[in-house]
């Protein structure tokens, strides 16, 4: 634009003003979602703080007070039934149904109002509010409808199978130890994988086919077959066949390390090859040998770039430790999935699987958080990777 505008202290707000209607749509959408989430939690909290008894309705639905085995009668009822009963009572309460119906209706209203009007909004800010209101509305009505379906079905079965904290008490020591063992196995395998991966990646970037070929064969075989198969061959085939007499625990870590090495090698190769050719030329022209150039210039820079994909590999490895269950670890060495399965077979209660899912998340979520933070840092240029200013 040729026109010269007056200098102002603040940048002009190009998004424009809002309006009562746009704010209204946003409010309806926001309230529908907020009522759904906060209302449901509040109802559950209210019932949790109430009397811990097993009501008639719970008994009618099969959540029966637990009676231990005696000489005259076998054990009966559900362990932890008072705890499960208040969850069920909360879900079945009229207040819960009212919350859900309100959320669905208000949510749908926001969606309809938003979709019908967002194209005709005069300012960016208004359109933005209307669209966000409609999005909240969609989330509230979909979530509300799903919960309503859940309530109308047989929530008592889900509660006893997924939310029976009492059942966890039977084998809870396995769970905690399983968490530690899973982390230990993953760390040990990853350490082996990184050492192997660095060596393999250096072989794969060689200009000589004779050097590259064996590394490529190794990588392709380990990347091209399931870890489950590798574990089976490693234990039943190699360990038994060669009379190595190693425990499942050791074999599993070694096989997972060999497997991680193949993936890590590809990550490192990509990292090394992403460094500008000029870095190698600069180093060589200063008299560095190839290995010195790698060590002082290329590899340190590549390492920074491969941190996010490497952590991703580690997250996958943590989850893959669950495959060791097919080899059968001894009871005192059970990793997290094995521990959960042990608990399940002792109690026939799937709450164990919910518990170990949470266990995996406790390890993996911080990792994923670190990956995202590092990626943001790399993108923001704090770790400058290009020479140009």
């Amino acid at each position: 634009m040729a026109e010269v505008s007056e200098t102002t202290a603040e940048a002009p707000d190009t998004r424009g003003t809002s309006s009562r209607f746009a704010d209204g749509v946003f409010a309806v959408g926001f309230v529908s979602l907020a009522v759904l989430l906060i209302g449901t939690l509040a109802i559950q909290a209210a019932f949790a703080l109430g009397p811990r008894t097993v009501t008639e309705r719970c008994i009618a639905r099969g959540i029966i007070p637990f009676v231990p085995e005696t000489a005259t009668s076998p054990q009966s009822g559900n362990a932890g039934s008072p705890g499960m009963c208040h969850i069920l009572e909360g879900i079945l309460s009229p207040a819960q149904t009212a919350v859900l119906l309100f959320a669905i209706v208000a949510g749908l209203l926001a969606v309809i109002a938003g979709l019908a009007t967002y194209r005709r909004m005069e300012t960016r800010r208004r359109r933005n509010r209307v669209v966000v209101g409609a999005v909240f509305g969609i989330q509230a009505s979909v979530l509300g409808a799903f919960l309503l379906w859940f309530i109308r079905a047989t929530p008592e079965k889900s509660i006893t199978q997924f939310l029976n904290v009492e059942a966890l008490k039977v084998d809870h020591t396995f769970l905690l130890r399983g968490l530690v063992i899973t982390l230990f196995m993953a760390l040990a395998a990853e350490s082996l994988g990184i050492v192997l991966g660095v060596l393999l990646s250096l072989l794969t970037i060689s200009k000589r086919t004779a050097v590259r070929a064996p590394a490529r064969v190794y990588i392709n075989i380990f990347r091209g077959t399931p870890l489950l198969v590798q574990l089976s061959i490693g234990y039943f085939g190699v360990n038994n066949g060669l009379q190595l007499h190693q425990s499942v625990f050791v074999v599993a870590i070694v096989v997972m390390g060999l497997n991680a090495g193949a993936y890590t090698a590809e990550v490192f190769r990509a990292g090394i090859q992403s460094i500008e050719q000029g870095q190698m030329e600069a180093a060589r022209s200063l008299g560095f040998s190839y290995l010195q150039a790698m060590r002082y210039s290329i590899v340190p820079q590549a390492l920074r770039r491969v941190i996010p994909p490497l952590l991703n590999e580690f997250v996958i490895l943590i989850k893959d430790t669950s495959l060791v269950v097919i080899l059968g670890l001894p009871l005192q060495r059970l990793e997290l999935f094995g521990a959960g399965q042990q608990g399940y077979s002792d109690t026939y209660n799937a709450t164990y699987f919910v518990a170990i899912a949470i266990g995996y998340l406790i390890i993996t979520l911080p990792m994923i958080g670190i990956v995202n933070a590092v990626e943001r840092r790399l993108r923001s240029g704090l770790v400058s990777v290009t020479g140009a200013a």
Partner: protein
Amino acid sequence: MPNEDGSVVHLEGIHKWFGENHVLRGIDLSLDPGEVQVVIGPSGSGKSTLLRCVNLLELPSQGRVWFDGKDITDIRTDLNEVRTHIGIVFQAFNLFPHKTALRNITLPLEKVLHVSPEDAKARAMEQLTRVKLAEKADAYPGQLSGGQQQRVAIARALAMKPRLMLFDEVTSALDPELVGEVLQVMKDLAADGMTMMVVTHEMGFAREVGSRMLFMDGGVIVEDGDPRAVFSNPESERLKQFFSQIL
């Protein structure tokens, strides 16, 4: 120790193929001590390839390079040792981005020349002062302007005490207002008697500082002579055409 003919470096019948592409088609060239040889020519004429053949960053497909009285194209030559005597500065600076300006300079001194850390630091600061960047010693390349980065790159090469400096279009990636500071460093260097080979598009610099000018086209040296003479009186049609396009 110069070559038998007194030159610092001597190229003999250099050919270079990239696949089917015949980039250098028989180059014979000598650089005498203190000479500032300026190489000009259209893009794709082989100037940079020729420059990179001098320190064997590109291996000639055919021909020999004599340095220190030895044929350094001989496979048994220790190129790492040879390259410590030949400094090169690139268009893209190629500083190590994860090291400070000072560390960029001390690293090769310590790891290649095995200079003690204290001496390396002293030598690095001397060169940084020379390129007027002593106060930027602890800055990372990403915190420096293009002109400053290029001056650090020159200081890094000079700290190795080379007998010959190669410059590969060192101002081409710079914003126009930053070109001057880099050219000034190169002028000072030429005045100090450094033997230099400069591939450049800066015609003013070429005429003013160069003691000999080469015009390359199609992988051969088309004209070779005193810069002022070449400028005022180009002999070949191709050079006349080249000047008419760029001036």
